[in-house]
């Protein structure tokens, strides 16, 4: 599973006793305990929103929405999964709903089944090639990710940054595993093209 050392939500989180106690008290309506949970999870949720949305103001709004939803629903948490996993999934779903409300085509089955002309197999590889040499410039990659269409960015962040598996993404986005794989592949191809373009521009300077 592609989970990085810095990935905020390792799947098998062992909850510490303080967290377990804060959770139980927050479920019973203790506001201070809820504030403690906020302190524990605010960075993770905010970072997730920021990665998925790419905009500070939206990330703040959605982080607020996630914790409001958490406040409404915390009593319903039954411990079937780790609290962090439950909260993370809730946050992803809230961001997805937000993107859908904005009218962004988060995922398009049609697009996956019928690639755009520029993405037809082989077409984007026909130009004189310039392989990415050496380590990838993090800033250039971050800019390239920011420039991805929302749907591609979402899949890329969920899979390559957050470490979700294709079957998990498919369940969240209500699409097939194949669609998730296809969208991720296209996202990486677009990033490759953006990085190559960047390298060419750097070389000309």
């Amino acid at each position, binding site marked *: 599973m*592609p*989970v*990085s*050392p*810095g*990935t*905020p939500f390792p799947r098998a989180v062992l909850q510490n006793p303080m967290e377990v106690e804060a959770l139980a008290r927050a479920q019973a309506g203790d*506001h201070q305990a809820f*504030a403690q949970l*906020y302190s524990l999870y*605010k*960075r*993770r949720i*905010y*970072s997730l929103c*920021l*990665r998925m949305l790419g905009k500070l103001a939206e*990330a*703040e709004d959605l*982080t*607020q929405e996630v*914790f*409001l939803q958490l*406040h*409404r629903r915390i009593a319903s948490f039954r411990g079937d999964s780790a609290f962090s996993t439950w909260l993370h999934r809730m946050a992803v779903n809230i961001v997805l709903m937000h993107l859908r409300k904005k009218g962004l085509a988060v995922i398009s089955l049609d697009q996956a089944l019928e690639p755009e002309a520029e993405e037809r*197999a*082989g*077409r984007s*590889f*026909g*130009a*004189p*090639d310039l*392989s*990415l040499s050496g*380590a*990838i410039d*993090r800033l250039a*990659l*971050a800019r390239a*990710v920011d420039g991805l269409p929302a749907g591609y960015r979402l899949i*890329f962040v969920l899979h*390559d*940054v957050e470490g979700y598996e*294709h079957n998990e993404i498919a369940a969240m986005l209500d699409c097939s*595993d*194949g669609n*998730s*794989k*296809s969208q*991720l*592949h296209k996202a*990486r*191809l677009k*990033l*490759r093209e953006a*990085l190559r373009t960047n390298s060419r521009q750097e070389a000309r300077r």
Partner: protein
Amino acid sequence: MTLDANNPNCAAFQVRLPDLAGSGEKIAADPHLQSCEHCRALLADLVKIAEAARQLYPVAEPPDRLWEQIESAIRNEKDGSDRR
């Protein structure tokens, strides 16, 4: 080095690539890659991008005012439900 978009083997490989990449199988063992420098370079780049992505984003700190806004929203919700 140029990629041959008209090479049917490359095209066929690239159609299979999303599935191969998501299957956890060892793509490097794919027979096409043994003989195709273009597709090896493509694959190496995609792997490099996926690896770089894991180090891409540091954990960010939300602004302090956010908790005040959340508390305020919680209070408003509570007041609203008390009035009903």
